């Protein structure tokens, strides 16, 4: 008997029990129409849209950082990247609130530029970027490290800067790594609650006016602030899990196919 395999499967089941329980009760005994209402579907839509947007920002802003960490030897910067995900997530929400508050100089400055995080799509996406970017960077960094540096050195020998080498040589040959890192960091963004429940409890902008992110809506059902109660919370959770699982699995399938 392969005991290692047996123990591994048992420990995996331990991790999956809460998810499987929610799926069972949410789609079965506790199924509640409120959990699949148009409002919940709009919440999921907002979560998907904002998470996808966050990943686009992750790609644009943080791919150079991941490459810099992979090819440089800057251990201090590397450890700083982890900070946002190593603090309690509501702290990030509070931090964004203070950063953009009219009572702080930074807030007055940002507001003078019409940059407002509170209950806006910008605030929601900013929080999701801060929470998902470390995952994106930590996924892309080993990918870049695993790539043969010879083509990059070749390009630099012909006068290309590191940045030009990244965009002209490395990225066109990194679609697998980029897909995997994007899907994994999108999974992280989909699951965020702590920071967005503070900075963007709901979005007060078209086309999602008055819509809360899915995790907030589930919490609202659970806390009784929205009619439906526990049954609706469990059903909405099951619906969200059904949306999130394929994205998470796709990320890991691509990752395995790229041999990482």
């Amino acid at each position: 008997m392969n005991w290692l395999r047996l123990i591994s499967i048992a420990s995996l089941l331990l991790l999956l029990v809460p998810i499987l329980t929610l799926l069972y009760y949410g789609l079965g005994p506790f199924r509640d129409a409120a959990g699949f209402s148009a409002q919940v579907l709009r919440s999921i839509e907002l979560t998907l849209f904002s998470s996808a947007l966050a990943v686009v920002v992750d790609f644009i802003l943080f791919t150079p950082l991941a490459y810099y960490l992979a090819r440089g030897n800057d251990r201090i910067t590397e450890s700083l990247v982890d900070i946002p995900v190593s603090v309690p997530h509501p702290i990030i929400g509070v931090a964004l609130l203070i950063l953009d508050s009219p009572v702080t100089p930074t807030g007055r400055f940002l507001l003078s530029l019409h940059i407002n995080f509170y209950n806006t799509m910008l605030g929601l996406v900013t929080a999701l970027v801060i929470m998902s970017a470390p995952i994106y960077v930590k996924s892309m960094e080993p990918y870049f490290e695993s790539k043969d540096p010879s083509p990059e050195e070749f390009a630099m020998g012909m006068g290309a800067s590191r940045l030009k080498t990244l965009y002209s040589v490395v990225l066109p040959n990194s679609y697998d790594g980029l897909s995997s890192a994007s899907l994994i960091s999108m999974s992280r963004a989909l699951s965020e609650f702590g920071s967005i429940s503070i900075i963007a409890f709901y979005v007060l902008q078209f086309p999602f006016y008055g819509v809360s992110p899915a995790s907030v809506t589930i919490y609202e059902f659970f806390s009784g602030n929205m009619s439906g109660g526990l049954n609706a919370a469990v059903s909405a959770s099951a619906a969200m899990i059904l949306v999130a699982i394929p994205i998470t699995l796709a990320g890991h399938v691509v990752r395995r196919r790229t041999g990482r």
Partner: protein
Amino acid sequence: MIEAKVRVQVGEFRLFAELQGAGVICLAGKNGTGKTTLLRAIAGFLPIAEGFVRVEGADITSKSVEERDVVLVTPSTCFPHLGVDSHVTWGARSKGLRPQKEYVLKVKSELGINYGGTVGSLSRGMRQRVALATALLSSPGVILVDEAFLGLNDREAFVSMYGKLAKEAGVDVIFSSQDETDGKLADYLYVLNNGLATPRQRETNL
């Protein structure tokens, strides 16, 4: 003309090498004698603890890789996503140069590059030819060929032709080899042994 006098330390391995020459230089030595270390130091990828690298009299020791005008070609050097024609002129375009179409065709023809498609779909030997042509068309001061001549079916004829084209373009070439007899393909032969470079033969016939 390239002149290098370098002391390099990589972990426990110490290299001391002194070489100078123009045209085609063969750097021979068995595995682990420091050929790649020396080439990477000249290209700027390894710090030189002591010494200098000069190209046409200009000291490039402290210049960054991008500014040295020294290209390192290895067997795995290529940009797989590019088409052959786009690849061979990549370095030149990157430097803002516009090589004449006739010259590009001549280089491709002389080096046996008579195929199209993306470089990633080519055989390893074909990719090496494309990479070497790319390096040449980028008109650098020096091309360092780290075992990228290995695996070519017409290796001796190819090296001779490559050396001829490089000389016409005013580019020096240093290539590494495990076989000392490859010195006959070069103007200069240096043999590396336990991190020490020794000139064996000077001004051989090309």
